[in-house]
């Protein structure tokens, strides 16, 4: 049934968990629209025929609706629209709120290509590898103008904004290769800004990432890869470790949990920190980045504001590398356990 409807509606193959949810709503909306519109249309046609003009200056009755009729006119559509909206907003919240155990992929759009990089692994241009049946969070940004990351088979889309991060997540259900399109007009070759998502079965994905890390597989995509975005050290964590040393982070921050001038990096990521103004904050990418650029913004209680800003001293990938390094030092128990499901925690 749903296959048939998808074919009638020209919907592409559904290859993610979100696609299944959204196709249900799609069928529901199209179905009710068709039924209701047909009812209105048939009523109109019937009236056109039944009440056709018989005399040139025919007089008619003065018909006005009762309050009940008008109430019906308002309430019936309202109920349906709100029902659709309710389902739609639930799904929207779901798709914009990644589960905690999602794997991260950084996506950067630039005129006119997509770059993907993995926190611990390789970078790629125009080809993104993800495992099947595992939630993947995309952190999307752009280098120049607006782009939009669209995978029809997954039914997901999110704009890439320069200077901002947006996020969306998906869980691919079927291994295969799926097209990525750019849907925000971005200039001359907007229509050529295509990419692919390669969904691999879990084991194959592990193999792939291992090979990538070992750097042995010089496949097509490495040849294509824009060297400029690939950091000198392929693994961001390693690079971050080096940077933490050279930039002097480790002079004040320990990595073994001991107290020093600044808070220790060990287990810092995802920790609830108490701030000097009494509030608490959960340490995430945003907080770490902010603390590097503007150390005084949220001081952890018990520490002095002595750290210099790294604004302008660190480049984007370097910042990201240090963040990844700090993330790698998290204590193992922090991010384990089942996902708490869709939780809307955007309001801060």
């Amino acid at each position, binding site marked *: 049934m749903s296959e048939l409807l998808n074919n009638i509606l020209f919907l592409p193959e559904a290859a993610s968990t979100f696609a299944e949810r959204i196709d249900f709503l799609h069928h529901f909306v199209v179905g009710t629209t068709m039924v209701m519109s047909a009812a209105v249309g048939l009523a109109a046609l019937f009236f056109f025929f039944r009440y056709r003009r018989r005399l040139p200056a025919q007089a008619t009755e003065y018909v006005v609706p009762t309050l009940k009729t008008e109430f019906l006119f308002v309430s019936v559509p309202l109920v349906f629209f709100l029902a659709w909206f309710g389902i739609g907003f639930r799904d929207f919240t779901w798709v*914009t709120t990644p589960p905690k155990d999602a794997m991260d992929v950084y996506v950067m759009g*630039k*005129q006119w290509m997509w770059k993907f990089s993995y926190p611990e692994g390789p970078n790629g241009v125009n080809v993104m590898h993800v495992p099947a049946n595992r939630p993947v969070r995309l*952190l999307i*940004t752009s*280098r*120049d*103008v607006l782009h939009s990351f669209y995978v029809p088979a997954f039914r997901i889309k999110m704009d890439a904004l*320069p*200077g*901002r*991060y*947006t*996020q969306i997540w998906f869980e691919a259900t079927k291994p295969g290769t799926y097209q990525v399109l750019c849907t925000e007009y971005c*200039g*001359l070759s907007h229509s050529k800004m295509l990419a692919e998502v390669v969904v691999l079965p879990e084991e194959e994905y592990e193999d792939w990432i291992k090979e990538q890390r070992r750097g042995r597989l010089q496949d097509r995509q490495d040849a294509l890869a*824009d*060297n*400029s*975005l690939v950091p000198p050290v392929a693994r961001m964590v390693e690079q971050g470790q080096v940077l933490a040393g050279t930039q002097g982070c480790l002079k004040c921050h320990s990595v073994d949990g001991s107290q020093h001038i600044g808070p220790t990096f060990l287990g810092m990521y995802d920790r609830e920190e108490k701030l000097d103004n009494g509030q608490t904050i959960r340490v*995430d*990418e*945003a907080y770490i*980045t*902010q603390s*590097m*650029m*503007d150390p005084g*913004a949220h001081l952890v209680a018990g520490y002095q504001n002595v750290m210099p800003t790294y*604004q*302008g001293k*660190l*480049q*984007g*990938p370097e*910042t990201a590398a240090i963040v990844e390094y700090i993330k790698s030092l998290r204590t193992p128990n922090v991010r384990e356990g089942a996902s708490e499901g869709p939780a809307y925690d*955007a*309001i*801060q």
Partner: protein
Amino acid sequence: MAIANESRQEEQNMREEHHGAGRYWLIWVLLLVLTAVTVVTGRIHIPTWGLVLALVVATTKGTLVLLYFMHLIDHRGANRLVFAVSILFVVLMLAIPLVDLGTRYRGATPPGSTMSDMQAIDIGADAQEGRYGGGLRKEGKMGEESGAPRQ
């Protein structure tokens, strides 16, 4: 007499409300006092409520100008409605983007993610060079020459 009702009402209001000039002077004095208040309180830089206080004072001043200098207090009907609607729209128009901004997900605007950081990376092939039309204009040289620091 639909046509005259609105207009005549209006004319009557305008006509009845002709006061002495003293009223304007009084309002003027009030406005100056409020200006003094806002400047004095503004200088103290009250942390959280400074903006609110300043806006409250500004709104009071604005209301005085509107009601007495612009005679809105004498107007009825459409004129008031027009003004009220425009103010309502301004408020909603201001509130909704701020609500959006306040509820974005936290990573949306980390300070380190602004494009200036990213531009520091040399992306390799020059995206601007040799493309026909539509590409990016070369980053203006004026700022750099005058020593404008990248924020």
